């Protein structure tokens, strides 16, 4: 087969199955091919598979467009503008990469996304497109000021991550679009970061609450503060009031300026099987303190 579009048609397996619709799986080996296919609509995009398979039968339903053939979609590169993380970059790649201290929170989060098995397969882009309120990748990316790059047959666009995430399982992704990269503009690469995840067990846990903090310290003062909290609202969110309260503060006064009211006003936690809403607010406050402490350590 040449470089043309590569489609695998599925035949009956000869054991009584009705013939499966042909062309229900595609594994394009270039982005333009992928975008041409996506323009036709009706595809489910398969990246790492870790969110697509749970709940499905022995095979995935519907027409599946497998991004596995797009080598250019994975990997982390740096240019003068900042950092580019391919959307199909796996958690284990993030863990093993040598990254600026501003991305330590992302690396800490990556180590707590499922176990080794999920970290090897799961991708950052998939984590964002799945848009779970408890997505571990979101708070560490929010504090980096991350943007997402979305491609379609008609062009590319960039969106701030905060604008991409609309709600639980809801994003700005349009029909025919695929996320190609997560972009960290240079200002977001400054400083150090830390991540705090809270759950009721050590491994394989969906967060009750989680916080990422990125801090830039100059002359003993916080000159740039970015804080984000996840699992405490429909979408993970930056804590702008706390950020404002901390900006300009001497390092040794940082902890004192973190106020419950400023945290609470930014979140809208719910009661669920993991915790109560009121607990989440208190825990978020404590996690903010610890993440700030961790980023300063």
């Amino acid at each position, binding site marked *: 087969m040449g470089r043309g579009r590569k489609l695998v048609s*599925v035949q009956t397996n000869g054991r*009584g199955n009705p013939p499966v619709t042909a062309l229900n*799986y595609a594994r394009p080996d270039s982005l333009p091919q992928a975008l041409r296919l996506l323009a036709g609509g009706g595809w489910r995009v398969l990246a790492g598979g870790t969110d697509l398979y749970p709940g499905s039968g022995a*095979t995935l339903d519907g027409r*599946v467009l497998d991004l596995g053939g797009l080598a250019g979609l994975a990997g982390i590169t740096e240019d003068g503008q900042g950092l580019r993380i391919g959307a199909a970059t796996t958690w284990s790649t993030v863990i093993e990469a040598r990254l600026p201290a501003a991305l330590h929170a992302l690396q800490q989060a990556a180590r707590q996304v499922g176990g080794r098995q999920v970290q090897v397969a799961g991708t950052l882009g998939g984590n964002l497109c799945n848009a779970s309120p408890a997505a571990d990748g979101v708070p560490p990316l929010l504090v980096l000021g991350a943007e997402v790059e979305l491609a379609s047959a008609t062009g590319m666009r960039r969106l701030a991550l905060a604008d991409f995430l609309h709600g639980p399982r809801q994003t700005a992704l349009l029909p025919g679009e695929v996320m190609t990269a997560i972009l960290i503009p240079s200002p977001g690469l400054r400083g150090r970061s830390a991540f705090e995840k809270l759950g*009721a067990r050590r491994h*394989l846990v969906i967060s009750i609450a989680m916080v990422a903090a990125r801090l830039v310290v100059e002359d003993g003062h916080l000159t740039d503060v970015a804080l984000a909290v996840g699992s405490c609202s429909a979408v993970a969110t930056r804590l702008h009031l706390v950020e404002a309260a901390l900006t300009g503060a001497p390092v040794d006064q940082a902890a004192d300026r973190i106020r419950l009211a400023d945290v609470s006003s930014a979140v809208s936690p719910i009661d669920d099987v993991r915790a109560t809403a009121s607990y989440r607010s208190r*825990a978020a406050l404590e996690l903010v303190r610890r993440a700030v402490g961790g980023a300063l350590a």
Partner: protein
Amino acid sequence: MIAFILNGKTVQTDAPPTERLSETLRERLRRVGTKVGCDAGDCGACTVLLDGQAVCACLTPAARVQGRHVTTVEGSSPELTRLRAAFLAQGAAQCGICTPAMLLTAAELLTINPKPTPDQVEAALGGVLCRCTGYRSIIAAVVAAGQGSTVPVTEGLVGAAVERLDGAAKVAGDSFGADEWPAGALVLKAVRSPHPHADFRIGDFAAFSAQPGVAGVFTAADIPGRNAFSVVPPFADQPAIAISPARFRGECVALVAFEPGVTPDLTTFPITWTPLPALAAPEEAETGPLIHATRPGNLLIEGLVKKGDAAAAIANSAHVVEGIMTTAFVEHAYIEPEAGAAWLDGDTLVIRACTQAPGMDREDTAALLGLTPDRVRIIPSAVGGGFGSKLDLSVQPLIGLVALLTGRPCRMVYSRAESMTSTTKRHPAEMSGRIGCDANGRITGVEFTGRFNTGAYSSWGPTVANRVPVHVCGPYLTPHITARARAIHTHGPVSGAFRGFGVPQGALWQETLYDQLADKAGIDRLEFRILNALSDGDASATGQILRAVGIKECLKSLRPYWARAVAEAATQPGRGVGVAACWYGCGNTALPNPSTIRIALSHAGHVILHQGATDIGQGSNTVIAQIAAQALGLPLSAIRLIGPDTALTPDAGKTSASRQTFVTGRAAKAAAEALRAKVLHRANAGQGALLALEGDTLVVRDAGTETRIDLASLPPDAHRHALSAEATYDPPTLPLDTDGQGTPYALYGYGAQMVELAVDAALGTVKLLNITAAHDLGRVINPVLARGQIEGGIAQGIGLALMEEYLPGRTENLHDYLIPTFGDVPPIKSLLIEVPDPEGPYGAKGLGEHVLIPTAPAILNAIRDATGATLTRVPALPHRVLAALDGKA
């Protein structure tokens, strides 16, 4: 066509590109060593190596392995070889269902990091769940494999740390319920109630049945026998396939058989549901509409133990504590969902499935299907964890029905959600009462009332209601007691047996109150328990005069650890130490529960042990053989195991109630002694004679004489062996009278555990630091297996205390329902105490359930010690701990 290199050999498959690799491996390539636990990446059981990296095969599209290397447990590598040996030596494989995944994940680790530390092992293997071992032995095994090769221990009698006799199969990928099926087997799927209580109407399913690939639809009307079962026959109330209304979410209401290879689809099954008001809590059920017309107040049964005058004793006590404790539904969460296959062998219906109770399966399935028991043969598969839930029927009557009616082989594998919704749970309990002591700290009396949510059907509710009052005073001398436990029906999941039959719930109530009482009396909490611990000659709550009581030895053995831990905790904020104890009667409560064992010498010169006790990971295949070898006087390596199989092994009863080492062990000892007596008689030798096998010759040496018995030349006996013997043992018990007085158990086991932990007072999280566990086993048959039981039971106790809460409709998977992972179980020090019981084989007592009982109360006691917070509800999730911290102020 997808081609890849599987364990070094190129294979091709016509799997659809997005088929789960686990499905491709198991169904198309018939490599069933890769196990499926959840199909969601939550348990890691299906781990394989893809180009050397651990991945979940259930999350991997078949197309992704094109041209790549896949390693499964059927493969080999130097790392796997060392790991297998270390797993066997450390007892790191119990049931074996997670073992393939553990081995492969560890193999990847050893290629990256050849000599990992325990912390590195924990981090690397954290994606795989185990429900049996408590993880510590797995960590030890992987560390050991990094240090070098392990020398196996395969020979030894009672007391020896021999490897499990079924261990080689466990580390090769054992054959569980889902792993064997006859060619052409139909695939069964159940239609299940989405509501806790609902009327349903099955429409005309002719069109549904006529679809290509649908082999048949079966409803309650098709059941030829009595469509009602229970583990306690007089309470038989549960249909295998329900007739409207459905009484709990997940209840089977119809069955569809699909031709092999077809994608099963129930979405168009013609059924209409009319949801009805559901009774969720026992409180409303006691005054609500009846779930079973013959059970007023929705009361299944009330158990009572009454001795003396508890109210008067408490009224006259120097110190009294009063308190409540509430527990949740707890799911067994074994990694193997229920599965099995059935086929007809002539007139015999053969059912191969995961089970803890082949004899009971046979009787109950026969009754449901209108067959005589001799027409049903049960072959237990390897069992991927049971813990009580696989005592009850699951797939057995369903696959049996379809095989019987169609004449075709069939199979059924529950999904994780089906396993969680449709099988039994630990009873949620609401308990209250008072305990008093005199000015010296001696217990005066106990008043206890417990309400247990027994769910929609009886299952083991009667056993729980009877066991709790007998045990709820703990292993302490209690002169006056009134204890009542009511089992109340609701439209919740069926509550059944789960490691301890309600005793762990009762211990949570009693042991946490004991700490408060010790404080009131001004006595150290450990010493308070030692002061009140039962001794030989004391009368139990049921008036039974006890002997071989080991609780004082257990508690006293903790003293040096306690002193060290208390001193350490005193110097560090947030640190706490807790202790709790247990006792537990082994075997059925005041009911017969015999075991029969047959042992033989074959014409080929082997010892054939017909061992009908199902080994669900706890080790009876090995322990019973060690006892038999000891009694017979021949080496363990001479033994060949047969069974369990109802056609080949006499009934050794259920694997429940911590009874196999004791009851089946006694039967094995008696059978082996009888066989030895036959041999000695034939050789005219004395009791002290030494036996040896030389090929097919049995050599008997006695006082300078040597007799050689040519086994090959002996005529076959009734069991077609050269020589054989059979023995039955039934523990001597006496019925309980109307006040619950009597001798319910022939022997009891005892234990005490100490927990050290740290509480994060800002978040309410609990970090366990160390657990020290002292258990009186009477006689240790195999120390590695005993420690494995202790560590695994503690892990489940940790889950009960800190994280496990099954909520129907909300936690029906292994990411919302949390069980402990690697890293949630701290280092465990096991102290094996031996106070031999004259009734036990070589003095041995049961252990399997005891080990879970003290853990949860010891954790709550340590939390209170650390923070002052009194928790009256488990699991102690972080928000509840924080609320309790608020409440103490």
